[in-house]
């Protein structure tokens, strides 16, 4: 018999036992449903984590600090045994030189600490306190208006937080783009409490307005300037101060394409540094998602395993019911192979049906995405259930294969049936 005819006949015999076929497929569909949802939730979770990560840091950058003593002890140490006190927690240019030599390091930016006295829109406008920071890495930040090339603040530009718009007299975020903002930068005074004598005014163009978002874990409303401008302010403020050339930390950007983990390892090996990367956090989060995903998928596989016995049982009954048909086919010259195939394909149909029903139901559950997002108060548009058509196709295909394998024993029984016995009517 031709495969096509066998498949058609198999499908037809299933239609003759609709209730039984449907119930058997439903058993499989429970498994297919669970597996599909688990995979979708895993993919969605990973995508969500990814967006969390990119909004909170740059995976291509490492942050380097001086390694603190492992043992934090309350006991006083003997005088003179504490290591270089001046160096405690501070990095300098020799460290930069050292790390720069490591393969895969593209750029090193010290963490400059800077401050401003006030910001103003110039002229007679009011002056306001403001925090300021330097955007060193290429972390994507959610913007209310404007855009940042390569996620970096342009030189001479500034990013202002949404919260500053009102006091600065902007109607909305778009109104602020391209406007100028003047920062008043003072040199620290030598005597506490005395006003500094020296100060400069610097004017920047507003390049973008950033906003608070649930995907940004620690949002700080502050002005952000480019590394170059930050460095200039730092140089001005620390020019004749002892802390000039001393940094709390370094931001190391790894060359595109280089292995971040390897560079991280190399910096740690070069001695005395503590290096943390977003990759670390990302891996921990992914691992967690994977465990949950595999757990759920495992339950789905168990359901599929249970349904396999359902298929075997149903097919055995089907063989018993159709003894005469099998006998007739054999009398008409059907080969054992043909009969076996007929019943295996019948099982395959059941697998196909179950897989399609289960996947279909899971896709319907995907309609709950907006509700889930709303309930968990996630960023608008986030989809925690992400379906991949290819995965579904592979899942259904494997269910067909599994069902065909489950149909093996009943099919063998049918193939072995003695036609004379089968056709006996008494």
């Amino acid at each position: 018999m031709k495969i096509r005819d066998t498949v058609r006949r198999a499908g037809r015999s299933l239609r003759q036992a609709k209730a039984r076929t449907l119930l058997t497929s439903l058993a499989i569909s429970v498994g297919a449903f669970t597996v599909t949802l688990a995979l979708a939730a895993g993919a969605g979770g990973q995508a969500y984590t990814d967006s969390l990560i990119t909004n909170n840091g740059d995976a291509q950058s490492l942050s380097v600090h001086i390694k603190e003593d492992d043992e934090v002890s309350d006991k006083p140490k003997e005088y003179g045994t504490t290591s270089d006190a001046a160096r405690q927690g501070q990095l300098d240019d020799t460290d930069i030189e050292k790390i720069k030599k490591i393969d895969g390091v593209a750029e090193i930016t010290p963490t400059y600490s800077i401050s401003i006295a006030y910001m103003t829109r110039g002229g007679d406008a009011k002056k306001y306190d403001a925090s300021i920071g330097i955007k060193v890495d290429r972390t994507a930040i959610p913007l209310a208006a404007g855009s940042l090339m390569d996620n970096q603040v342009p030189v001479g530009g500034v990013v202002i937080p949404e919260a500053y718009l009102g006091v600065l007299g902007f109607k909305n975020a778009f109104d602020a783009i391209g406007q100028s903002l003047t920062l008043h930068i003072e040199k620290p005074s030598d005597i506490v409490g005395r006003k500094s004598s020296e100060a400069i005014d610097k004017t920047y163009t507003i390049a973008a307005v950033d906003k608070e978002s649930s995907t940004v874990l620690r949002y700080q409303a502050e002005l952000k300037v480019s590394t170059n401008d930050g460095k200039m302010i730092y140089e001005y403020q620390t020019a004749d101060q002892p802390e000039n050339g001393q940094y709390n930390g370094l931001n190391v950007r790894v060359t595109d394409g280089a292995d971040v983990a390897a560079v991280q390892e190399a910096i740690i090996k070069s001695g005395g540094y503590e290096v943390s990367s977003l990759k670390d956090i990302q891996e921990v989060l992914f691992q967690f998602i994977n465990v949950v995903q595999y757990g759920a998928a495992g339950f789905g596989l168990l359901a599929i395993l249970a349904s396999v016995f359902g298929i075997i049982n149903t097919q055995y009954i089907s063989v018993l019911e159709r003894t005469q048909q099998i006998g007739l086919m054999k009398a008409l010259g059907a080969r054992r192979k043909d009969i076996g195939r007929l019943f295996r394909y019948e099982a395959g149909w059941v697998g196909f049906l179950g897989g399609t029903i289960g996947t279909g139901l899971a896709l319907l559950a995907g309609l709950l995405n907006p509700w889930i997002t709303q309930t968990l108060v996630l960023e608008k548009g986030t989809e925690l259930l992400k379906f991949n058509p290819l995965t579904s196709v592979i899942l259904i295909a494997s269910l067909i294969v599994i069902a065909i394998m489950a149909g093996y024993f009943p099919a063998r029984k049918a193939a072995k049936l003695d036609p004379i016995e089968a056709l006996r009517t008494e």
Partner: protein
Amino acid sequence: MIEVKHITKTYGKKQNAFIALDDTTFTIPDGASVAILGKSGSGKSTLMHAMSGLDRPETGEVVIGGQNILKLKTKQIDEFRSQQMSFIFQSFFVQANESCYDNVSLPLEIANIPISKRRQKINDALTAVELLDKKASRARDLSGGQKQRLAVARAIVNDPRILFADEPTGNLDSVTGEVIEDLLFGYNKSRGVTLIIVTHDSDLAQKCDIQIHIKDGKVEKIESRKELHS
């Protein structure tokens, strides 16, 4: 020509052994209509199974067209059956849930006839038994006589050389039984197909060219109509 030579078939073992066929020998010429007569348990069904290769006797030969089919491998016998033989049974064995068309299509599918050639053959066979108008109906909706006509259509659709009929009228009243008999003998005469009817109905047997009487697994007597000898 079908030559049955010294076939013996035993069921069971040792003390419980039951001899179904005991050194049975006879010859059937091509195109003849043959009745295998006997009471139930006489071995006539076993004989049909042996002649069609469904069963394998311990000894003897069944030579059809010069070939001993008992020496063939299972696969080859299956193919031989699908090409050259077909069956009609007392209980019809039509597939109740399938359409008449699909019922008749089954032997063609088994014999690997390409789809393009099937339609014509199926329509011809259904026309021959006057069931063409029931083509799309399910077999379960047919009457007993119609079901057996459908079985006849299924038996003749692939132009067999040998047609086995096991009590073809056993489940039918005399009027519908006669319709089936006319169909079978008509086909036997018009196509020169060898028709072998297994029956205990002597009236039906009378209509055949040759009557082979079986008793306790042995050929009791063979009667032939005069015109065959001439």
